[in-house]
């Protein structure tokens, strides 16, 4: 990595603000994501974590704020634009369509069309190819789901989360953003999900991960940012903090020490 690479963050957001009418959900939050790092985002319920990543990825329009990628200004106003920029996101509670099969969920919005004139004309889908790619990926990631033709609602929370994460592995080119990837998962399934997060990093992606689990911050993140009441309360290298300090920052008990 050259000197310039370390200096210019992969993603630099400044003054990200979101108002819902009179409610200020997010107040001028800055975020830097460096290449190859896992950045944790923590904060109490309603602190603005989901709002932040939705504003970054064009899922909602932001009231104010700028985003740079590789030091250049970038406008991301729709989820499609975020994907085009190489940003893949797993939104909280909005990862899969219950009624669609695993295959259709994995490729939703990016289906593989048959490579024939007819296929391109009418958008006929190449399910065989999609199935093959998914099976290969699942095998590589050790996701033991074979009946990928079944609707997503037939699978457990852990399996669904694994599918959502596999989607970011399949399509993520530069940045993976994960909103509570282990929410509502059991111990074993959490471990599995977090190993998938680690393989995203090993795959060369930079990761932003929202979590309520301090252990996961300590074990998997390089840096962590703390949101409180819509504001950025602190940014720390994980090596420099312990769980108790983080909890203090989240609740505001450590307010004075921060300032």
């Amino acid at each position: 990595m050259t000197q310039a690479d370390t200096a210019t963050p992969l993603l630099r957001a400044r003054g990200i603000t979101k108002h819902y009418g009179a409610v200020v959900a997010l107040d001028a939050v800055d975020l830097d994501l460096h290449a190859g790092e896992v950045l944790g985002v923590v904060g109490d319920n309603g602190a603005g974590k989901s709002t932040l990543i939705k504003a970054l990825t064009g899922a909602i329009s932001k009231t104010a704020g700028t985003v740079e990628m590789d030091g250049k200004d970038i406008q991301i106003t729709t989820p499609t634009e975020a994907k085009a920029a190489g940003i893949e996101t797993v939104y909280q509670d909005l990862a899969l369509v219950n009624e669609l099969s695993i295959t259709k969920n994995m490729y939703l919005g990016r289906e593989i069309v048959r490579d024939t004139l007819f296929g391109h004309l009418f958008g006929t889908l190449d399910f065989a190819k999609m199935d093959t790619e998914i099976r290969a990926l699942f095998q590589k990631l050790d996701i033991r789901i074979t009946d990928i033709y079944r609707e997503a609602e037939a699978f457990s929370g852990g399996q669904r989360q694994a599918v959502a994460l596999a989607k970011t592995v399949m399509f993520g080119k530069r940045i993976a953003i994960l909103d509570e990837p282990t929410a509502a998962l059991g111990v074993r399934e959490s471990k599995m999900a977090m190993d998938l997060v680690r393989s995203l990093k090993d795959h060369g992606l930079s990761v932003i991960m929202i979590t309520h689990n301090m252990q996961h911050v300590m074990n998997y993140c390089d840096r962590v940012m703390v949101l409180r009441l819509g504001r950025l309360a602190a940014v720390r290298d994980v090596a420099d903090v312990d769980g108790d300090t983080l909890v203090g920052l989240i609740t505001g008990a450590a307010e004075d020490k921060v300032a």
Partner: protein
Amino acid sequence: MTDLPRPSAPPVSAPTPGGSNLDVLKHQFQQIWQVLAALALIYMVFFVLSEPFRSFDTLLSIFGQAAILAILACGTTVVLISGGLDLSVGSIFAVVGVIVGIVLAEYRLPVPVAVLIGLAAGALMGALNGTIQVLTKVPAFIVTLGGLTAYKGIAEILASGRDLSRFPENFQVLGSGYLVPMGIMFGVALLTGLFLTKTRLGNHAFAIGGNEEVARLSGVNVRKSRIYYYMIGGVLAATAAILEVSKLNFAMPARGQSYELFAIAAVVIGGTSLFGGRGGVGKTLIGMLIMQTIIVGLSYLGVGTSVQRIAIGIIIILAVYWDVWRRPAR
């Protein structure tokens, strides 16, 4: 995709069997066998109760009478799967009938041209329904309720003072007898089914109807897709209208009344969800056959149309109850 390190994590769950083509077929059959069984049962009941019902002609007439409404209902299926609703297709049906009648009886244009004009008019009215919805965000129920009366009014204005009858011989072929309409019905159902299951736009109907927000976040162009689904509904209402005008050999604005309700009834009896995200045209065909079998069967038993309507009404409520009941809590 480059190589990924294999995570050391334990498997998410025990390996689940399945994945072969046979499993997929079995899975699909599981979703349709109940309505098929219901149809068989209802047919058997009338078969036992009524002697004349047993003839092959009766079976043919059930299909024949189902054909026109079934074509319309294929469009309704697409719209309902996408989480939409179109109450105006009966009135679109009326407008198209009148337009085709005018084109044929007054302007004496060739039949293929008349058919194309009719289909285009249906597409246009459907697209208008969809466009108004995505632009104004007024609910589908209201927009298409408005369409129901507005299009009806247009049909009346267009038809007033005109004699729309006695069409060319080669036009009358389309809707006469049972076989041609039945053939067109199966053709339409096949195409609509292929559209829903094999194409990108068709698959997006299930995604949007299942969870519009997830679809949007996945990069699906929800608004544009919705307009297409309403257009398809309009085109299929137009197709049905053209067949009926041909069959009756006259056109009038009163036709198509309540057809949207019969179509919705057939769709939900067949098992397509009123809430979107699930369903298919195969189910709709079966639903339409169930309805027609009951109507034909009851009339063979000497039961009048009023009681038939009551029976259909009860079945619609039961079908939706079943839809609500099996829908998993979220």
